[in-house]
């Protein structure tokens, strides 16, 4: 929180409370009078949307847990019962299942936003790292949750993912057996997955608290990447951004409801409506859409351990992104080369998702004549994914000539976001 607190308790009770637990002051300084850059666009509404997503998952999840039975003999049936017999069970389950997808949709927007506007750069490295921790926890929670209905995809997804740890040299087998609590995915596994699936969202809530704390120390970045310099660069959070965030949340919830009511299953797999059978693997097993890019990276490597390492490295590299990008300019709005590479990066992520959904030896539509199957396609995109972080961003800082930046946020707003006339912009300052 920059600057001294402006909160003034007005009633006797709030004065009494403020000198004992200044919780109203905290809320006031964080969400009412919090000075926010005046130029935040709709890409900046996803943080608020994510908070709503987390609350939705926690509330619907707690309700589902009242009817769900974490035992291999009853889990599948108990989920069917929620869908058919429990009052409004169909609705609550659908919200929770669709909610997971919407949560990831929002987090991907949020992450790409941060990558484009350079929000990971100093002084927001810790903020960024906490975000990546949240993302990792989200993936863990989503994976564990998907196992609970105990359908065929649940079971075989759990089998494949837990077996990834078997690739570790020496400790591989003890670690997988420790995860399973047995010699294979079984009742012990389902039980502990339920326990952990319940726990992780609360861990996420805790890390979100740290994330917002870390946000409120330097304050928001903004589309120009230029630091706030005067009060004229900011607006109070309320009502300007409570309303803007609120509007975005409503639009998001309309799309959310569209899925819940009209297409609750489009993002799932029909095979998960077949009860888990440890003797038969479905003909095609694929993870949920939001994990597909990593699945494609896993399969891009012909070696078991190598594939696992590369898959985890794809997430791990996000942690060191603040130190890989050497450019002094934050926002790619003023980085004529970086914005192209970033565009390709987004396309590569989508392409990896596509590759992850197809069988590796299927030909890529349109590229079949060139002999490009999804394995090769996935490999090329995997190379680009890593090159973006490990080669392109480190080098660009030295070769790219940034375009002129406005002198201040205020000026960029008044000039309709056009960069200042040549000469008007001060020389690039460190990390602007």
């Amino acid at each position, binding site marked *: 929180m920059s600057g001294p607190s402006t909160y003034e308790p007005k009633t006797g009770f709030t004065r009494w409370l403020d000198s004992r637990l200044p919780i109203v002051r905290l809320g006031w300084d964080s969400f009412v009078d919090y000075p926010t850059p005046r130029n935040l666009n709709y890409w900046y509404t996803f943080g608020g949307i994510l908070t709503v997503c987390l609350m939705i998952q926690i509330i619907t999840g707690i309700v589902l847990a009242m009817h769900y039975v974490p035992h291999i003999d009853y889990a599948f049936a108990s989920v069917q019962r929620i869908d058919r017999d429990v009052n409004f069970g169909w609705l609550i389950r659908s919200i929770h299942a669709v909610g997971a997808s919407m949560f990831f949709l929002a987090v991907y927007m949020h992450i790409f936003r941060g990558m484009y506007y350079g929000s990971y750069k100093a002084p927001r490295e810790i903020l960024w790292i906490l975000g990546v921790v949240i993302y990792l926890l989200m993936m863990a929670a989503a994976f564990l949750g998907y196992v609970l209905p105990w359908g065929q995809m649940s079971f*075989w997804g759990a*089998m*494949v993912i*837990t*077996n*990834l740890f*078997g690739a570790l040299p020496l400790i591989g087998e003890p670690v997988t*057996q*420790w*995860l*399973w*609590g*047995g*010699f*294979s995915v*079984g009742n*012990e596994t389902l039980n*502990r997955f339920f326990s952990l699936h319940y726990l992780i969202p609360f861990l996420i809530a805790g890390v979100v608290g740290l994330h917002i704390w870390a946000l409120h120390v330097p304050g928001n970045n903004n589309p120009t990447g230029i630091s706030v310099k005067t009060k004229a660069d900011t607006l109070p959070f309320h009502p300007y951004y409570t309303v803007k965030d609120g509007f975005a949340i409503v639009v998001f919830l309309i799309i959310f409801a569209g899925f819940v009511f009209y297409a609750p299953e489009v993002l799932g797999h029909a095979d998960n409506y077949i009860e888990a059978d*440890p*003797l*038969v*693997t*479905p*003909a*095609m*097993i694929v993870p949920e859409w939001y994990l597909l890019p990593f699945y494609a990276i896993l*399969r891009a490597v*012909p*070696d*078991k351990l190598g*594939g696992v390492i590369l898959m985890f490295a794809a997430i791990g590299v996000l942690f060191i992104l603040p130190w890989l990008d050497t450019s002094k300019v934050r926002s790619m709005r003023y980085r004529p080369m970086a914005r192209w590479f970033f565009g390709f990066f987004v396309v590569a992520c989508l392409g990896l998702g596509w590759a992850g959904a197809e*069988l*590796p*030896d299927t030909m890529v539509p349109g590229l079949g004549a060139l002999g490009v199957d999804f394995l090769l396609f996935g490999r090329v995109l995997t190379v680009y994914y890593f090159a973006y972080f490990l080669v392109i961003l480190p080098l660009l800082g030295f070769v790219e000539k940034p375009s002129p930046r406005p002198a201040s946020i205020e000026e960029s707003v008044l000039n309709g976001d056009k960069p200042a006339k040549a000469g008007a912009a001060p020389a690039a300052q460190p990390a602007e």
Partner: protein
Amino acid sequence: MTDENTPEGGGETRRDFIHIAAASMAAIGGAAVIWPFIDQMNPAADTLALGTTDIALGELEEGQEVTIMFRSMPHFVRLRSASEVEDAANVQVSSLPDRLARNRNLDDNAPATDDNRSALTAEIADGVEISDDLRRSLLVTSASCTHLGCVPTEGAGEFGAWFCPCHGSHYDTSGRIRRGPAPENLPIPPMTFISATTLRLG
């Protein structure tokens, strides 16, 4: 007594020793308390109790395969046709991605010949008579793909035996990995013929 041994003198004191000893004990105690909370996730005593599973061979016809559970893991039991055995026997071990038999009835470094993979390697209980042909044509392997544990599909793939749908591993009629990401041959459990028509696993 010199001043050095007092806190003001900056030297080592009995108090430093007590601090270090107390902190070390706390660390050891902490670690000792953590261990039960980690170990509780390991397989429990009843899970560890090793079971055996008996397979009635009389019900199997030539070329037929069943998948059974043994120690909570799926296993293939396949009575291979003569041509399948021949195909498998004709493969050079040196051309295999994994040259080890992976057979619990043999040494760890036994080569992956077809004879070393088939039920020829099973123990035979006292007084049981069983033909070599039957033993050679019988193949019992784990049904968990050595890549990431899916159950390969029977009768598919380039080698006419098993194809793993998860990431495309091809196994031959001896259960050996031939192509794809799986690193090892399908392992073979400990086996004993306890009668002319019953094979016991475990």
